[in-house]
């Protein structure tokens, strides 16, 4: 399945990026094919499961099973309760009649719990500025490499800014991605002021007529007050040169993250007003349900998902697909 990436970005001409042929993946039938296979299996399992537990009768056992599936996916208690209550109400009113209806509504209600705002990434500015933020180890730098690669494939000229001046070799890591993508990287010495690199980066983008500036920042825990203040300063510096920028502030959340993800997102939203979330590491066994909690409770759209370490391992986010995957094995298994 190849995505029409021009639908993913605002300000990009129509063009598709074919999914690359990967020998390793082809042997296994490809990641998406695998996913689809798995989904088909679990859909079946899910329905069988429901059929066997309830005989078209909705009892506490069933609701508890659904609750557990959501909790197991890291959706968290509040959002779980919200979903289950809605379904229970529909069952009570007779709107849901049988197990097939329940499975369908379960997926729909789950998908509806995501923030329904525009999930596209706005690059319709010259230059468009994307600021990447997130806690340590969530995959900021890798995601930047992937976004840059996709933009390049779509005929845009990205420029990367090495705003992580703190972590050992972070600049080298971004430079490596820059050379893989074939785009310029603006960097300073390690230990320098991130705001200064960012300022220079935007100046360079303007001078060289780059289309999209993607700014890497140091990973920081949302509890580190000074580092969060530093992030606010970076945003201010960007605005000094381009008042309406950054056009996108993307928060990376690791799919394996538990309930702390919600607090993280809330703090980052307060500091730099995030416009979307990139859910990374979705190629593991974690369901990434924390994204649902974040999107629902903070009203922020999930825009992209990361599915591996390759440049092309990036997918547009689709709530319906996500809901399908969420209830995969957890209900079918126990």
């Amino acid at each position: 399945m190849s995505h029409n990436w021009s639908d993913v970005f605002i300000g990009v001409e129509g063009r598709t990026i074919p999914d690359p042929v990967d020998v390793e993946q082809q042997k296994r039938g490809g990641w998406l094919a695998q996913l689809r296979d798995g989904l088909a299996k679990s859909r079946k399992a899910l329905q069988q499961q429901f059929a066997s537990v309830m005989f078209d009768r909705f009892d506490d056992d069933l609701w508890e099973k659904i609750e557990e599936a959501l909790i197991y996916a890291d959706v968290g208690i509040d959002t779980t309760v919200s979903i289950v209550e809605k379904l229970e109400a529909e069952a009570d009113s007779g709107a849901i009649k049988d197990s097939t209806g329940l499975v369908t509504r379960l997926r729909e209600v789950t998908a509806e719990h995501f923030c329904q705002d525009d999930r596209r990434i706005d690059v319709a500015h010259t230059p468009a500025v994307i600021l990447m933020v997130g806690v340590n180890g969530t995959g900021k730098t890798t995601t930047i490499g992937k976004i840059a690669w996709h933009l390049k494939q779509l005929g845009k000229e990205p420029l990367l800014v090495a705003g992580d001046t703190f972590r050992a070799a972070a600049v080298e890591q971004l430079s490596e991605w820059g050379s893989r993508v074939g785009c310029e990287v603006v960097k300073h010495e390690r230990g320098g002021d991130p705001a200064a690199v960012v300022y220079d980066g935007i100046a360079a983008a303007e001078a060289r007529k780059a289309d999209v500036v993607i700014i890497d920042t140091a990973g920081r825990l949302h509890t580190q007050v000074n580092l969060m203040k530093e992030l606010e300063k970076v945003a201010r510096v960007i605005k000094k040169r381009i008042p309406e920028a950054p056009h996108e502030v993307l928060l990376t959340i690791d799919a394996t993250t538990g309930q702390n993800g919600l607090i993280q997102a809330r703090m980052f939203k307060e500091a730099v007003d995030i416009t979307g979330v990139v859910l990374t590491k979705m190629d593991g066994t974690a369901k990434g349900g924390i994204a649902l909690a974040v999107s629902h409770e903070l009203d922020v759209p999930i825009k992209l998902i990361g599915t591996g370490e390759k440049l092309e391992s990036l997918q547009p986010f689709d709530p319906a697909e996500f809901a399908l995957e969420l209830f995969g094995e957890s209900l079918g298994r126990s």
Partner: protein
Amino acid sequence: MFESLSDKLQGALDGLKGQGKLTDKDVERAAREIRLALLEADVNFKVVKQFVDKVKERAMGAEVLESLTPVQQFVKIVNEELTAIMGSASTKLTFSPRPPTIIMMVGLQGSGKTTACGKLAKFLISEGKSPAMVAGDVYRPAAIDQLKTLGESLNVPVYDEGDKADPVDIAKHGVEWARQKGRDVLIIDTAGRLHIDEKLMDEIHHIRNTVKPHNILLVLDAMTGQDAVNVALQFQEKVQFDGVILTKMDGDARGGAALSVRAVTGKPIKFASSGEKLDNFEYFHPDRVASRILGMGDVLSLIEKAEKTIDQKKARELEQRLRKSTFTFDDFLDQIQQVRKMGSISSLLGMIPGIPSAKLKGLQVDDKAFDKIQAVIQSMTPEERRHPEIINGSRRKRIAAGAGSDIHQVNQLLNQFKQVQKMMKQLGSGRMPKNPFQMFGNPS
């Protein structure tokens, strides 16, 4: 962010004061709160189920100790069960009689392996070892540079073969190199990998079989959710790790993953790592994380300390005297000493739930202030302590000189004491807290 669990439990068990036993109904209500708290803390839901069942079984009909409230009694049971799972003592590394001792780090991407390598190296240096490191992550761009930079800053040699070599060979050659260099511990960094990535899991399996590490440590992000169980089980199956390093502990994640991993693999959490500075690394104290998961501060140790330290009889005498409004400087001194027996004031504050540690950072409680007060009181004659009103100008001068202080401070203390005395008089006419400690916020 979270309503503290002690508050919730308080609500659930309200109106129970004075009852001698926990009834089934109380236990059910409290167990529900515990279940939610554990789920919010990211403890795996299957582990939660087992755990809560066990706590319920123990708590039903349990006697409530005289000195505790039902809430405290219940929390005590929960805490004991948590500690039983987590293990009570921190477990150390295994050192080989034939150096180098080999430590291999494994884990998911972004869990903090490379940083943990640097921190562990620094920790080992402080224990008198001479560590070296091997850069075995050939996949992540600049991972080798990152380890080398850390090595340079610590003056720890790093072995690497660039990013084109085979990690199994790198590890094998690294061990030889460390032996020749006479380093007694060798830390092998490996690439982050998904537990379901068969090729890469086979790779660490090979490294393990080739170099036979004495310690394999799984590096786990404290923020990990329900999936921690899958990750741990898969790594256990492939490499049989010996222990866990829990990273990013400086965030506000409850770290329930630690409990899950311990419960399903039986492997101990060995180290806790927080912050990006290389010295924020220490042996893991299982009992501490138990209360962190529950968001209880160290309320239990506070309860225990208070029970042990405060002399009940003295407290009663004090109460009597307060009722008669004969609160003297002797009592005041006594009270200060009682509280101080429990530790420094700042550490006591840290144990009180509801005060987040972040807030405490800005708050400097000067323990020396108490030393000064003590010195001033001890420079008074017994007569002066009983009847502070006789302390005139010349007595003040003498007291100040005796305490190595100045008159201003003596005056200040006398004024404060007057206020305390006044307050005590008012309290004395009403009900007094059972022990003076309660004035410092013991939530009973």
